[in-house]
């Protein structure tokens, strides 16, 4: 069975530097794949490429069998890929509620939306997600004043509102307390029933908790792939990424 997302021989250069170098990976539907690697390995860049934020120098990206390589961001998003950014990106001048409402993007056509005043199913969904993200009490507030951790939660909430088939999570737990990390792990594991996830994280404890597969990138290329155990045993990975202490 082919993967939901297939990245084939992807390369990306900025000016002279090759940031992604002949990188391939495949994510099977219904799994949770953790993408790890040193700072600057190209994880975020890979997400940029998948979501159409930048265009690759070469290579193809297939989503559900369809080539999405040169597509626009919104087309890719509509196809069912949602993304949480590494630097949390929420709509700062809108309220938390409005943020979630906008993210509920079943109808995206501007002309249809001109005549749309109420969205079916919005209220229930919104309540559900807000509770999940712990933001129920802050729905009326402007998103710009949230603390870092709250912003992270809001953005996760927005991605969930989108109901995508594939979720790209770039460092979702940065700045969360340990309790919240556990909660996030639970949510992610739950999500796996209905969606596919790619999670970028440096927190190995979290990765251990959630990952079905771990993919390691280094200098824009695939370094290793396998279960966490296999990865942790890989000397190259320990060398460039984990360090002796963590692996021990």
């Amino acid at each position: 069975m082919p993967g939901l997302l297939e990245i084939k021989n992807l390369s990306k250069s900025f000016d002279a530097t090759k940031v992604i170098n002949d990188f391939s990976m495949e994510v099977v539907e219904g799994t949770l794949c953790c993408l790890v690697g040193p700072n600057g390995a190209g994880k975020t860049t890979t997400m940029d490429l998948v979501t159409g934020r930048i265009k690759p120098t070469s290579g193809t990206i297939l989503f559900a069998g369809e080539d999405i390589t040169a597509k626009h961001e919104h087309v890719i998003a509509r196809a069912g890929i949602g993304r949480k950014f590494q630097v949390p990106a929420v709509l700062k001048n809108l309220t938390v509620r409005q943020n979630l409402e906008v993210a509920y993007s079943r109808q995206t056509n501007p002309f249809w939306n001109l005549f749309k005043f109420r969205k079916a199913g919005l209220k229930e969904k919104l309540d559900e997600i807000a509770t999940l993200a712990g933001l129920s009490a802050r729905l009326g507030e402007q998103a710009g004043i949230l603390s870092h951790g709250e912003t992270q939660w809001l953005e996760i909430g927005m991605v969930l509102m989108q109901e995508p088939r594939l979720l790209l999570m770039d460092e979702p737990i940065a700045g969360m307390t340990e309790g919240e990390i556990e909660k996030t792990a639970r949510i992610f594991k739950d999500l796996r029933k209905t969606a596919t996830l790619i999670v970028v994280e440096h927190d190995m404890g979290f990765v251990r908790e959630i990952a079905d597969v771990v993919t390691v990138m280094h200098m824009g290329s695939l370094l290793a792939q396998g279960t966490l155990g296999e990865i942790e045993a890989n000397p190259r990975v320990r060398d460039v990424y984990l360090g002796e202490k963590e692996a021990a």
Partner: protein
Amino acid sequence: MDLGSLLNALILGLSIASIWLIAALGLTIIYGAAGVINMAHGEFIMLGAYSSYMLQYYFGLPYLLCVPASFVIVGAVGLALERGLIRYLYNRPLDTLLATYGVSLVLMQGVRLIFGSDPKYLAAPEIFSSNISLGFASISSFRVVILLVTALCVLGVWLLFYKTRFGVQVRAVMQNKEMAASFGINSSRVYMMTFALGAGLAGVAGSLFGVLAIVLPTMGASYVVQAFLMVVTGGGSLAGTVVASGVTGQLQSVFAFFTNDTFARFVIFVLIVVFLRFRPQGLFAQVGARR
């Protein structure tokens, strides 16, 4: 069409470019560094012309001294304006547009009330009203003066912004005021100096334009739109404005040579639109931050 006239057109293009550049230079600093959309820039130019006129007419200052003196006077006006108004608006760039539009009305009418609405005469040394001709190329000596002053100002601004600690401070404040402040930079002072400098440069431009064209309360209006086009097309950077003015000045001259002035202008406006279509961030703009 012969080569000589084309050469003349090219030389003239350089001169037009320098005029547009000196008009836009102060604006580049104010917009590029402080993010203020200064609609009163044209009136700063006008004030430059009037301060030169005033110094010359009432105090008999020689023209060549009027130019730097205008820098100081208009710079001081800019400083006062910054302290009194602009500094409250730094995090609202579009509002600066509106507020400075109000300022421009006040300055224009204020000058009219003081000096009257009739055009004023600004005298320059006799040698400036002659021309230099080399073979079949010819240019007026005053245009050479403008070119030199412009070059000098650009060089000065460049040195200040890219070679001094002050320059680093300005650019730091412009990107992130809080961070700059956290590292000991007095952003309020930096803004103030930047704004005054930009205003002062407009003053220099004014004292030059007063000799080239006319001294009137409304004279500034004709420069401000052009200056904005240059600054924004250039992406808000110094190098961008220099190149944008250079290219459009040349184009204006060459198109006017082949067709006429009005049509040349039309073409330039359209070209700017087309250009921005393909480089939506202007010339030399930095790529935005990543997410």
